[in-house]
């Protein structure tokens, strides 16, 4: 951007940004025509299926695939022996980095199976039924090993060790004994002892949350087609087809140019579709069979082998003066990583105190491997778990001090100029404004009845920028095409079209936004980290601005005037010099129609690494009623305020907030991975893994606070992730005030609440 436009200066003249047009991909999606990962059918296509481990932890003694391969209709069988043995190389993928050796061993087990459901072999056959039969014919001999799933048990001395070569990093010295603790993270400032010494009151508390799944309704799906010359095409539902390409190429040692990934529509991801599970296997099966191969997970496979996020244990010690000033905080975060290192505990450490201006703190995080599926990113990864502990501790402090919880938060709130606990100095943040939005909301003055309680909690997420490429071209009739490499997971085509239309000065219906495949546009990292409207949007605006400059040049040449005598307004070039433009303004259509005479096609590309993403803050208030007979929690009303910078398409911003809240409510109240003593998930289906349904929820009032981010042309900040951060604590606190008992372990199931009420009653 040459000259960032301050949104407050242009707010009055914005014509498209801030309105609520119908999304350009909407009709396709309400008529059933939009093609998702499982909707593609190619001639000669085979069905690929995966054989999965029946054990939570076992050594693989032998795999015999001969009988499966001999079955008529079976065209290929594969194991990890068909994939390269990789070194431990890190690959950056937007919000998360992958260790390629671990990723390879996750998509296809190598040496050991590390969780129930771990892939161990795959087949491609001419029908579903034959593929199923073939899986049954694969003979595997295991030596079962003791397993561990609970994060604290996995840290304890004597726990079964998953990886013989894992030595805890971050301890200062390398230990000599292998451990399930991959990394110890630490963040501190000030003098902790002095901080606690200055406190009039100290709380020490502990909160835990269970592993939960992202729960996208579309199971993972892809089609891979490997050609004899090594050129392949992959159709895949993902949050980033360039990352799918990169991971496939790296895992299979292929040239990036030989892997063309075509983005299917994506049926939800929430972070869980930023990595690969099926694509490399489908590619190997396609190569071995000489046919295109389609692979689609069942819901059970989605639960057993993808996602979830970390179960966690958070302990907080926090001290404050009688006036509510927090003087010290000590936070310890233990995170389940699943079978391979890489839980989001690092982000949890950095976000845990991000809403609080505390001089003295120490935050410790533990990344712990366990015999459960490798965790994947889930909406503000790590932050909700941390906020559960910290926000509840703040509420405990406020209660002990007799201070209103809102006042407690205002008193200790981070403001512009304060150094964030994770390092940078906050600029242009809207946390105080967001607190104020809740404080003055009518929700706060609604009286509560018996067995009802109100919970307030805050949340933070960094938001990111990152790499995006955008092509904008003007068609011969003056309409525009905007191509991005960012999958549209919740309405981003609309916001891209709107920003282009705003700059070009045309109607949004004249802009056709598309998501281009990896061979049709330059690199763009995942749709994740709440980056797309910010970063890809920035590229769209810059590209449109380049085209406006180009069109002004063309108009100046046509009129024979200097370029500074041309202004662009309402989709047309206007000449400031009298008498030079007898036919009046040159519209986009006129310029496009004569482009051949003024230098050829009107098109441009912008590739950038967007900097300056504005961090996001949310403040939520919820009211619940707890049935003292059953322990059932009814969410009566919910209001979520968030600093969104500037809402490009307010309806989809509200939708992000409402959706994040709903997921947070599910996390707080219902959702959890339940494991048997044998380490098998016992609720791998939507009947027993209970995500919120329509009748569980009230309307969710999304309040958009707009404190613009000057790094974005219209002031946008990321919005998708913040809203899942406060609900866990907000619900736990509301239940506390409804029942008088503090619930420390999520989910807040009726049986747990009943037991706590009974225990309190004695």
């Amino acid at each position, binding site marked *: 951007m040459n000259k960032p436009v301050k949104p407050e200066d242009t707010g009055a003249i914005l014509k498209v940004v801030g309105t609520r047009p119908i999304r350009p991909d909407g*009709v396709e999606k309400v008529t*059933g025509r939009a093609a998702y990962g499982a909707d593609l059918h190619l001639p000669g296509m085979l069905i690929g299926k995966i054989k999965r481990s029946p054990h939570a932890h076992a050594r693989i003694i032998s795999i015999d695939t001969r009988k499966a391969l001999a079955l008529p209709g079976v065209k290929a069988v594969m194991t990890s022996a068909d994939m390269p043995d990789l070194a431990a190389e890190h690959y950056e993928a937007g919000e998360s980095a992958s260790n390629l050796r671990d990723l390879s061993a996750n998509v296809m087990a190598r040496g050991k199976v590390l969780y129930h459901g771990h892939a161990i072999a795959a087949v491609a056959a001419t029908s579903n039924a034959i593929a199923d039969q073939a899986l049954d014919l694969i003979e595997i001999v295991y030596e079962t090993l003791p397993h561990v799933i609970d994060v604290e048990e996995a840290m304890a001395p004597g726990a079964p060790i998953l990886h013989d070569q894992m030595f805890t990093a971050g301890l200062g010295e390398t230990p000599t004994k292998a451990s399930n603790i991959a990394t110890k993270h630490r963040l501190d400032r000030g003098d902790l002892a002095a901080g606690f010494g200055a406190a009039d009151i100290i709380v020490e508390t502990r909160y835990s949350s269970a592993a939960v799944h992202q729960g996208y*309704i579309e199971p993972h799906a892809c089609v891979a087609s490997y050609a004899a010359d090594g050129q392949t095409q992959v159709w895949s539902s993902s949050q980033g087809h360039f990352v799918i390409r990169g991971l496939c190429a790296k895992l299979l040692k292929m040239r990036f140019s030989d892997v063309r990934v075509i983005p299917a529509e994506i049926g*939800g991801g929430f972070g869980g579709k930023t990595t690969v599970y099926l694509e490399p296997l489908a590619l190997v099966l396609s190569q071995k069979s000489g046919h295109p191969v389609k692979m689609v997970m069942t819901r059970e496979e989605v639960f057993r082998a993808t996602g979830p996020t970390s179960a966690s244990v958070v302990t907080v010690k926090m001290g404050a003066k009688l006036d509510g000033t927090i003087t010290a905080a000590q936070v310890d975060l233990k995170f389940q990583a699943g079978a391979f290192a890489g839980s989001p505990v690092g982000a949890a450490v950095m976000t845990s105190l991000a809403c609080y201006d505390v001089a003295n703190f120490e935050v410790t995080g533990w990344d712990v491997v366990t015999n459960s599926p490798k965790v994947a990113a889930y909406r503000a990864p790590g932050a909700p778990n941390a906020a559960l502990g910290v926000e509840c501790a703040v509420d405990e402090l406020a209660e002990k001090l007799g201070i209103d919880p809102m006042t407690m938060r205002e008193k200790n709130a981070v403001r512009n100029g304060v150094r964030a606990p994770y390092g940078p100095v906050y600029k242009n943040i809207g946390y105080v404004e967001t607190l104020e939005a809740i404080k003055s909301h009518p929700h706060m003055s609604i009286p509560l009845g018996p067995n009802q309680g109100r919970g307030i909690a805050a949340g933070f997420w960094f938001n990111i920028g990152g790499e995006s490429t955008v092509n904008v071209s003007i068609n011969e009739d003056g309409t525009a095409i905007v191509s991005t490499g960012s999958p549209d997971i919740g309405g981003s085509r609309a916001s891209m079209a709107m920003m282009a239309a705003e700059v070009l000065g045309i109607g949004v219906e004249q802009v056709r936004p598309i998501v281009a495949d990896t061979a049709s546009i330059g690199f763009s990292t995942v749709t994740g980290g709440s980056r797309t409207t910010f970063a890809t949007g920035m590229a769209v605006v810059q590209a449109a601005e380049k085209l406006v400059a180009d069109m002004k040049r063309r108009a100046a040449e046509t009129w024979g005037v200097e370029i500074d005598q041309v202004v662009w307004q309402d989709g047309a070039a206007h000449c400031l010099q009298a008498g030079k433009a007898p036919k009046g303004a040159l519209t986009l259509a006129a310029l496009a129609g004569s482009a051949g005479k003024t230098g050829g096609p009107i098109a441009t590309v912008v590739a950038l690494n967007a900097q300056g993403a504005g961090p996001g803050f949310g403040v939520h208030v919820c009211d619940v009623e707890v049935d003292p007979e059953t322990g059932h929690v009814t969410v009566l009303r919910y209001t979520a305020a968030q600093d969104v910078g500037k809402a490009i398409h307010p*309806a989809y911003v509200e939708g992000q907030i409402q959706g994040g809240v709903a997921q947070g409510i599910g996390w707080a109240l219902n959702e959890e991975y339940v494991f048997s003593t044998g380490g098998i998930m016992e609720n791998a289906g*939507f009947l027993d893994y209970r995500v919120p349904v*329509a009748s569980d929820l009230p309307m969710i009032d999304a309040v958009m606070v707009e404190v613009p981010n000057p790094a974005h042309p219209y002031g946008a900040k990321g919005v998708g992730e913040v809203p899942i951060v406060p609900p866990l604590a907000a619900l736990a606190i509301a239940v506390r005030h409804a029942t008088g008992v503090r619930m420390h372990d999520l989910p807040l199931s009726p049986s747990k609440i009943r037991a706590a009420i009974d225990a309190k009653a004695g």
Partner: protein
Amino acid sequence: MSKQRTAAIVNGDPVEFLSDAGQTLLDVLRDELHLTGSKEGCGSGDCGSCSVIVDGRLVCSCLMLAAEVEGCRVQTIEGLSTGSTLHPLQQKFLDHAALQCGFCTPGILMASKALLDANPDPTESEARYWLAGNLCRCTGYDKIIKAVLDAAAELRQDRKSA
């Protein structure tokens, strides 16, 4: 195993198909008739993404055997609009931004149609309970419920003025 021949009316048109004994209506809609608008989110009747209407009754097509629709009228998302004119439910879902990823949308639209066919003036609570069998993970249901109630109002108005 021999396949069974079934004849039915799908979205107003006569169709015939062959299916294995174990093939579900969803399998046949998607794989044989290429009507991929109905989605499989779970295959166990828990998510509602495959919702279709069979002889006026809302069903999860993943729980119904294909052969069971012999002689039945089946309505899927592909038949909800009239030519290029969207059904009021489809239009209201667009107006209210009641979809994000759109994967659950076909099933929710068919379930909503069944609701409004049965109850032209549902309360918010009735709409929420009727749609409790259709999971949406993106929206928190807020805008979906508003769209359904708004479409109901419009359909009532259309009926009055008709």
